[in-house]
């Protein structure tokens, strides 16, 4: 019964079992697994050679030898091509074949017991490991080529800080022989000023199990210290402490020097900008201010943050803000220089005149704006004071001039009369006292002197005028505006509207002082003779006459005057009429007289047209 049980167990064992008996190795007991392995055809008593199944000649020969020698043998991972029963496919499988000689009680060879254990899975794993190790070796070789050709020193360091590996570049760079003791030499090649820091930082990183990045100077083969960047990362055998650090040392000397130079340059520029007592700023291509210098904060009392990217505009005089903002948007759009004269609020609330100027700079780093606001308040105010004084002086001078001229002119007639009367007296009267002859002589001399003096006076004034009048190309509008600035008080007093229409002939070749004087007198005249019932409107128009000569008309809507036709053609007497008609208005005659004279002296011509109650138009023909 026990025998029977044993048979059953053997029959169903997952390992293959077969007994081969006698020197011919005839099939004896074959269990199921072995049956499958041998292809199913194992007739008991038949020799193995007649039904070898998948067993090749070499293994059969080894079996024969084991039988002969009586010494067991195990064929490891022996491949047997097996046919899968379902698919009919032939797949290689691997078996450990244990060949055990069988003996009878007298130690006579009976045959072989063969055990077949399927080791396909193990064998496949082993083969995979083999291919993997081949691949690893290949990758390793590649890595080595890469590490040893890259322009960097690569290294591996252990937890104690000892170098495990360094790439050949280290030897090229340092010029050290291959026999050099890396661990002893490397620290010595670090610049003395950097050494302690580097050793310390590396040590700290290693104790904390983290990587590092630092720069230091390393001695090159030629003795020069070069800046290098050392970076390393720990190799973690999680979750334990790292055992190795792998890293690279890259030379960054040139970059560092360049960056240093750039930084120094920028620092110096900024220092410069911060030391200038002007408002200096830079803006992005889109027009947002990204830097205000120190002085801007001092002047405005606002930090760059408080000012913000467009805050400069809020420093301007409120009435000027909208226009300035519009012009800035336009400059940013077109790239055109921004320029303006604006009042900017100081921290104490005072507005001061500034010239604002901004220009675009396009370089490799893109497009930026650089701007400056220069305080010109003192100059501006000084100019205004000077201008007023100048205007006043010029006016006084002119009045004096005119006075002298008029006086000398007006005194001529009475003097002429006096001379006539005196001559008549000398002719008709008799003088008894002989001394009276001397007296007559003296009166005669005195009259002659007076005449001479008057003549000289007139000549001097005339000469001065001409001397003081070098001609130049003048912009009529700007001269007119200057004059109006001087007359601002009068203009405001009567609320006059003044229109300048110089487009048709915008420039004139004339003496500046003379042109000012003409405009000044004609405009102030028009202001003086304003109609009390309507707001004065004065239109100055520059044009070209039919013959192409420049012409200026000054038209007002004032009181007007009556002119006899003859006089209207010849302006000078008209002026006297003018004065007579408006005795309540002071000083009209003298001013217009001067205008007349200036125009005359340049070979020009003044015509007046007027209607009482409607207005007057003066036409200046600058040249005949």
């Amino acid at each position: 019964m026990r025998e029977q049980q044993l048979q059953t167990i053997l029959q169903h064992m997952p390992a293959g079992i077969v007994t081969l008996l006698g020197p011919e190795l005839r099939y004896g007991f074959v269990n199921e697994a072995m049956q499958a392995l041998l292809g199913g055809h194992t007739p008991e008593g038949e020799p193995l050679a007649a039904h070898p199944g998948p067993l090749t000649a070499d293994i059969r020969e080894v079996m024969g030898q084991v039988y002969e020698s009586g010494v067991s043998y195990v064929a490891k991972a022996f491949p047997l091509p097996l046919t899968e029963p379902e698919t009919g496919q032939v797949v290689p499988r691997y078996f450990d074949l244990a060949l055990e000689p069988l003996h009878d009680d007298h130690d006579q060879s009976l045959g072989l017991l063969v055990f077949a254990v399927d080791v396909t899975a193990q064998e496949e794993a082993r083969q995979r490991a083999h291919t993997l190790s081949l691949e690893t070796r290949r990758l390793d070789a590649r890595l080595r080529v890469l590490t040893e050709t890259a322009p960097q020193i690569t290294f591996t360091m252990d937890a104690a800080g000892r170098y495990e590996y360094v790439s050949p570049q280290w030897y090229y760079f340092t010029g050290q022989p291959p026999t050099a003791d890396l661990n002893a030499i490397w620290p010595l090649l670090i610049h003395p000023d950097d050494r302690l820091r580097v050793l310390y930082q590396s040590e700290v990183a290693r104790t904390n199990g983290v990587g590092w990045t630092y720069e230091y100077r390393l001695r090159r083969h030629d003795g020069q210290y070069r800046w290098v960047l050392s970076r390393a990362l720990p190799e973690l055998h999680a979750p334990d402490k790292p055992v190795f650090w792998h890293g690279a040392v890259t030379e960054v000397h040139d970059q560092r020097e360049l960056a240093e130079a750039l930084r120094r340059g920028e620092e110096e520029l900024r220092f410069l900008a911060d030391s200038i007592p002007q408002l200096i700023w830079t803006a992005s291509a889109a027009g947002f201010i990204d830097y205000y210098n120190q002085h801007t904060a001092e002047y405005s009392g606002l930090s760059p943050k408080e000012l913000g990217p467009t805050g400069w505009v809020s420093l301007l005089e409120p009435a000027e803000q909208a226009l300035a903002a519009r012009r800035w948007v336009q400059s940013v759009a077109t790239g055109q220089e921004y320029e303006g004269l604006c009042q900017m609020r100081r921290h104490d609330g005072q507005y001061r005149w500034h010239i604002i100027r901004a220009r675009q700079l396009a370089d490799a780093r893109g497009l930026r704006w650089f701007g400056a606001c220069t305080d010109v308040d003192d100059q501006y105010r000084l100019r205004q004071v000077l201008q007023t004084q100048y205007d006043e002086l010029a006016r006084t001078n002119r009045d004096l001039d005119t006075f002298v001229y008029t006086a000398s002119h007006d005194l001529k007639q009475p003097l002429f009369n006096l001379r006539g009367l005196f001559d008549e007296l000398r002719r008709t009267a008799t003088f008894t006292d002989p001394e009276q002859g001397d007296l007559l002589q003296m009166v005669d001399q005195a009259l002659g002197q007076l005449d001479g003096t008057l003549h000289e006076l007139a000549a001097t004034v005339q000469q001065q005028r001409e001397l003081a009048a070098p001609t130049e190309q003048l912009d009529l509008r700007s001269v007119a505006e200057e004059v109006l600035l001087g007359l601002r008080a009068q203009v405001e007093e009567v609320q006059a509207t003044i229109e300048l229409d110089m487009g048709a002939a915008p420039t004139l070749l004339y003496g500046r002082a003379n042109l000012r004087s003409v405009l000044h007198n004609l405009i102030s005249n028009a202001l003086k003779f304003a109609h009390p019932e309507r707001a004065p409107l004065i239109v100055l128009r520059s044009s070209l006459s039919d013959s192409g000569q420049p012409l200026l008309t000054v038209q007002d809507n004032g009181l007007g005057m009556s002119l006899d036709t003859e006089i209207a053609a010849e302006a000078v007497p008209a002026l006297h009429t003018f004065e007579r008609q408006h005795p309540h208005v002071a000083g009209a005659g003298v001013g217009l007289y001067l205008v007349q004279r200036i125009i005359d002296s340049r070979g020009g011509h003044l015509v007046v047209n007027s209607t009482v109650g409607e207005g007057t138009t003066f036409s200046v023909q600058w040249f005949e």
Partner: protein
Amino acid sequence: MNHIVYMSRAVRPLSDQDLKELLDQCRRDNALHEVTGILFYSHGHIAQLIEGEPSIIDPLYEKIAADGRHSHVMQLANKPISARSFSDWSMAFHPLEAEGFKTLEGFFLPHQVPQTPETLTIADALIVDLVRQAVFGPQQDTLV
């Protein structure tokens, strides 16, 4: 009441569909949180102004700034204002297919964007004018 203005660049160009979805979501969420303002978009350039309570718009700005659809987010203003300048939240851009957008609420073509509100200070209006110019390029009337 505060307002925030920023400019940014889209990580990749936004399609009509992207823009429409953004418009829908923002119209809905902003109305819910009483956030008003305007967004400009063109060729990957983005600029936006949002108005509302700082307790709402500060975290909203943080969220928008962290949105992966754009980067290079640069804040130009974040400051108190005396009153809102925008009545709702809207968007201005150039869709490839203008048809579907014409009737959308809160949508403008770039040249139809209303003038910068007068209620802004001149310095703040200047920010809006400059970002609009940076996104859409110079306007015709500024190039006189």
